[in-house]
């Protein structure tokens, strides 16, 4: 898994050509590169971006499902939640995602520097408004609180001083990083005990020289891969090595995956899959074609994690926060819904940031099995039952079990699908299996196991 990720990832490019033309302008005419968009252009840009970001979402899910470099994409998902931005700008979203995928398993220093200079981050955290004599502290504050050291390791004064160091950091309309010298505060600053004419780069380096940054990142990675409940001693040991390696992410992960404790009982299935991990897991285990790929965005919305749309700059809180009565019931029911192409009788909450006062379009999945459609009146809104039609490639799934003896099939399916034993007695599960033949047994077992609480864990 670590080897497959050695090559640079191929960038995604789903942006509508009209948007690229609007943003990139005419390279031969330098003035067109520096202009600003008119209000009308901005509006059209946003509208199209909303659609394109949905495409990017689906494209990335496909990559997570089909790639050989599974770990890189999974780690990219981690960094996507760590460096959480939301700009409703497809060009900047694609740029930042590429930075993240490129450095996901590389060096955290490179990642931090590149992300800090990306248009998505600079604009999301208002660094365009961070000017000499009128500092905007948003980026500086989140940099310390969320991206490097975590709360409690710096003072308000450190936030103020470092914000001054980032004055003048901006990007062009095309998303290229620039330092606007006239807006930069070149005076003396004191940050975490160091005094000098500190630049933004200096601040990032000072933060990386604090071991606390390695601890903060290691702890978060531990929660992502090992256990939602943290073992502080293990985290400190990992952080020590991570720091000494100069923030080599690949080394850190190798260390985790080759540790005995990674396979200890208490660390088995101790992490609740995020909705995206869960969707990708189902698709990897049950190869399938989805008739309306947007169905996956609907499921993300219903389950509380939409790619490129984190709740705020702190990302998705994760763990037990994923699970409430509705999200759990939906997770338990979806495998069977996929199996039978049945309806999901649920509608997500509206997202006013993306709709901008328009009626929601395009997220409704209208066609159902044999054209079945039911509308429920709810005030002025038509509520539809939403269908997910998929074609599961069972042959591919069956291949995993060709060598299994008939009496071992049931437990073989369990071993593939669950990371842990289930407290549900075999006798109960077996009552719900279709034992007509080998294949029906395999399929019904897979669907049942995917609908257990244990399947939510990894």
């Amino acid at each position: 898994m670590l080897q497959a990720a050695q090559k640079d990832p191929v960038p995604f490019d789903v942006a509508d050509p009209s948007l690229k033309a609007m943003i990139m302008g005419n390279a031969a005419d330098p003035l067109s590169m520096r202009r600003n968009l008119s209000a009308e252009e901005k509006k059209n840009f946003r509208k199209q971006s909303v659609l394109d970001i949905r495409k990017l979402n689906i494209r990335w899910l496909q990559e997570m499902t089909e790639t050989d470099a599974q770990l890189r994409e999974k780690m990219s998902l981690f960094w996507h939640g760590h460096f959480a931005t939301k700009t409703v700008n497809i060009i900047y979203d694609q740029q930042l995602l590429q930075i993240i995928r490129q450095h996901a398993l590389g060096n955290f220093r490179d990642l931090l520097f590149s992300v800090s200079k990306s248009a998505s981050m600079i604009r999301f955290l208002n660094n365009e408004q961070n000017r000499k004599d009128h500092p905007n502290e948003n980026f500086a504050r989140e940099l310390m609180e969320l991206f490097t050291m975590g709360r409690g390791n710096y003072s308000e004064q450190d936030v103020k001083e470092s914000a001054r160091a980032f004055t003048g950091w901006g990007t062009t309309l095309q998303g290229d990083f620039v330092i606007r010298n006239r807006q930069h505060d070149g005076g003396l600053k004191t940050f975490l005990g160091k005094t000098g004419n500190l630049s933004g780069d200096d601040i990032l380096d000072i933060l990386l020289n604090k071991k606390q940054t390695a601890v903060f990142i290691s702890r978060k990675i531990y929660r992502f891969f090992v256990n939602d409940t943290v073992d502080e001693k293990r985290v400190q040991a990992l952080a020590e090595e991570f720091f000494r390696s100069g923030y080599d992410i690949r080394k850190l992960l190798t260390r985790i995956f080759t540790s005995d404790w990674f396979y200890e009982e208490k660390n088995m299935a101790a992490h609740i899959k995020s909705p995206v991990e869960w969707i990708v897991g189902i698709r990897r285990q049950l190869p399938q074609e989805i008739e309306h790929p947007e169905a996956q965005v609907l499921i993300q919305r219903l389950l509380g994690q939409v790619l490129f749309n984190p709740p705020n700059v702190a990302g998705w809180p994760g763990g037990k926060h994923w699970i409430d009565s509705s999200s759990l019931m939906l997770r338990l029911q979806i495998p069977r819904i996929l199996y039978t192409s049945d309806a999901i009788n649920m509608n997500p909450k509206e997202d006013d940031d993306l709709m901008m006062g328009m009626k929601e379009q395009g997220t409704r999945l209208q066609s159902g099995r044999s054209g079945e459609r039911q509308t429920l009146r709810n005030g002025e809104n038509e509520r539809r039952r939403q269908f997910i039609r998929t074609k599961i490639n069972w042959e591919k799934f069956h291949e995993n079990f060709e060598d299994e003896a008939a009496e071992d099939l049931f437990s073989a399916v369990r071993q593939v699908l669950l990371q842990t034993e289930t407290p549900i007695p075999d006798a109960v599960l077996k009552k719900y299996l279709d034992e007509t033949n080998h294949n029906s047994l395999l399929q019904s077992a897979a669907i049942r196991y995917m609908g257990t609480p244990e399947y939510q864990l990894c």
Partner: protein
Amino acid sequence: MLIRRRTFLQMGGLATSSFLIPQFLKAFEGPGKTPAGNKVLVILQLSGGNDGLNTVIPVRNDIYYRERPVLGIQREKAIQLTEEAGLHPELTSFKALYDEGNLAILNNVGYPNPDRSHFRSMDIWQSASASSEFKNTGWLGRWLDEQCQHCDKPTQALEMDDTLSLALSGDRMKGIALQDPARLYDSCQDPFFRQVLQSANVHPTDDSGSYLYQVLAETMSGADYIFEQSKLHAGNAVYPDSGIGKNLKTIASLICSDINTRVYYLSLGSFDTHVNQGERQRKLFSEMNEAVQSFVSDLKSNHRFDQVLLMTFSEFGRRVSQNASGGTDHGTANNMFLISGGLKKAGLLNDMPDLASLSEGDLRWLLDFKSVYATVLKKWLGADDGKILGGSFEHLDFI
């Protein structure tokens, strides 16, 4: 080949002998009634940023009419409350409540450093955080956490929707989201899940696996309980055929049953009126007006109106000036309605917004919404507001 990582290790830990589920279900067989007179809070979220200035209208303010030559609602069309203030013409039942002393209005409610993104500002209102902090729990979720240390009834806070809002999500406890008690009940009838709960040996611990079984058990027993209760007092009051009408009808039927629910949450929207605001707001207010009228009269005839407080809020108000598309853009401070037969103070509780003193074209907030929450938590729900809100906020005297 699929990766069989970690698959050959046996899990001994789960095979203990404690039966979480039957224990849990047992709790529902007891009386578990809410003592008569217990107070109920209903929160109506106006999603999308309702335009407060066209809701409670400053009918004597020249600046208002100057900044809104088209959108401004003329004094003679507004429903007159006081010399200075009028209500949106659709809100006739709110005027009746005002006259009875059952409606209170708070103006200029907001928070420091307002955020103009819908999601973020809603996050701030729902989690009751400062605009510079990020909380993973909602204020009512934290109330559940406090209230329900060893609570075996997961139905104390219900949301009328398919998915649960952050507001009702606590660290340990979460509200239940439902559109319709019968539908929730149906979706929990799968015999497989019933048998899983009857047979699975799950040791109640803090770990993730145990938590999943806990939520599953709570959902299924909660679904049974809610459905049972909803049938107890189906009610024959007539409600308008709208989403909010249906939801308030369900809420009223539950309030009049013996259920232990203290908090109900529902939303109406979208009020994001960048374009052609007049018609959109009029339509939504017409729905809200009719539904609230039915709700109040239903509660009154069941003698429950004194113990129910209906509170509205929106994530932000809108800018003072109209825009070029017949709408308004995202603003800041806003007003809130408080409706109950048990108000201690009614009418306009504070001054109308000062349009001569704006902050970059936006209303200034004068009252922190967390003060309203603190009042409701302390005086209506009898809870430790300081602990739930993580700080002390001034208590108001409307209840």
